[in-house]
């Protein structure tokens, strides 16, 4: 289970109208990106964790979602601590550790964690066809939504193809990280993926035409806004406004 998979359970976040959910959580992520003060940072983390709890995201999926961004922030943090400049907090192994660098590292780690958790709550609780349909209803150009949807479908197909190619190559003694000969093999593999992509697009275009598919997202679900949808969005918007007020006060 990871955040790219839809979790088929019942929860208040699952029942939330996809259009309201998309707009509210997107706004919530931008609130997360704007805060600097530690009390506001605590609140955004709490807000995103509440979303995850209400969406009933399994802990393993949540940890898997935050693992990579945390690793990236962990790489950045030591660098910022020793290069940010300003007041020196302490010395570690002869290198100055700047107070501003430590503060910024903390801000970045909390912000990115909150953003990823909020996004996970959105993605794991919404069927993907509904998410794309919601994007279409929110006036994102139909062609763009269709490209996103079709790409998402083909990513998994190409990953399968790549896994099979890699397995076949490994059975023949190929390794990803050894010498020039293996770099040549990797290069051939890359070219074969691009050529396969080009070949497949022609077949896909014909299939789409034959099935009468244009740039429409086909789903049986119709959206209907209820009072509960507005109340959920309102509650999160109020919390977001409170956080922004605390930030500017």
């Amino acid at each position: 289970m990871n955040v790219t998979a839809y979790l088929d359970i019942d929860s208040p976040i699952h029942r939330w109208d996809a259009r309201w959910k998309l707009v509210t959580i997107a706004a919530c992520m931008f609130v997360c990106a704007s805060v600097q003060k530690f009390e506001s940072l605590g609140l955004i983390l709490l807000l995103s964790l509440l979303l995850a709890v209400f969406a009933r995201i399994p802990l393993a999926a949540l940890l898997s979602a935050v693992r990579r961004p945390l690793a990236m922030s962990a790489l950045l943090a030591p660098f910022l601590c020793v290069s940010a400049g300003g007041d020196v907090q302490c010395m570690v192994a002869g290198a100055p550790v700047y107070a501003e660098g430590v503060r910024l590292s903390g801000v970045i780690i909390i912000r990115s964690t909150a953003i990823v958790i909020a996004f996970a709550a959105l993605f794991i609780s919404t069927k993907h066809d509904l998410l794309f349909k919601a994007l279409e209803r929110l006036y994102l150009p139909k062609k763009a939504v269709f490209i996103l949807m079709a790409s998402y479908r083909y990513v998994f197909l190409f990953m399968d193809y790549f896994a099979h190619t890699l397995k076949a190559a490994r059975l023949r003694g190929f390794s990803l990280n050894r010498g020039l000969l293996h770099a040549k093999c990797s290069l051939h593999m890359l070219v074969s993926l691009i050529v396969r992509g080009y070949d497949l697009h022609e077949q896909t275009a014909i299939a789409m035409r034959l099935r009468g598919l244009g740039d429409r997202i086909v789903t049986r679900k119709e959206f209907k806004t209820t009072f509960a949808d507005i109340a959920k969005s309102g509650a999160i918007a109020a919390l977001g406004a409170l956080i922004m007020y605390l930030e500017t006060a």
Partner: protein
Amino acid sequence: MHISDGILATRYCIAGFGAAGVLAACALSKTRQEDISRVAVMSAAFFVSSLIHFKAGPTSVHLSLLGLMGITLGALSPLAIIAGLLFQALMFGHGGITTLGVNATIMAAPALLTFAGYRAVVGAGAGPMIRCAAGGALSGLGVFIGAGIMLAVLYLTGREFAGFAVAVSVAHSALALVEGVLSGVIIGQLQRIRPEALAA
């Protein structure tokens, strides 16, 4: 060549979405019905291709493929780049959601420049070898330009990021060299196997 969530100030994230929106709108205006499947499938193919790592000294690198995307998809490449970056953020946690616009601009602008340069070389009637060399050089230059834009964005965000920005840019300059050489070889192979895949 991705900036993670939480690093940039909101105004830069919004400006990035604005710039990426303009690039995407221009690309969409040129997208015909039959191009939709091409952009979608090639976007997925490039996304998976970027998972292939190459050994470079003590570490291994994966190609950004932005030059190749520009050369194969032409003016439509920003759409494929946006889709690819979204999936990278979603599946692997590379880059971010709030920084998607900035990251897309960092990659799409050089991809379009690479395409324009490559088309000029092809238009001038250059032979296959010169096309490969020019394609490779332009792809490398594209990575270099992308790193330059990233340096500028990080520097604008705050002076505290200056040291980090310079270190990242130096690393990407080395990557530009690897990307240039490998892209040239890939363009050569595509010219032989599937020349129609090259948009220019």
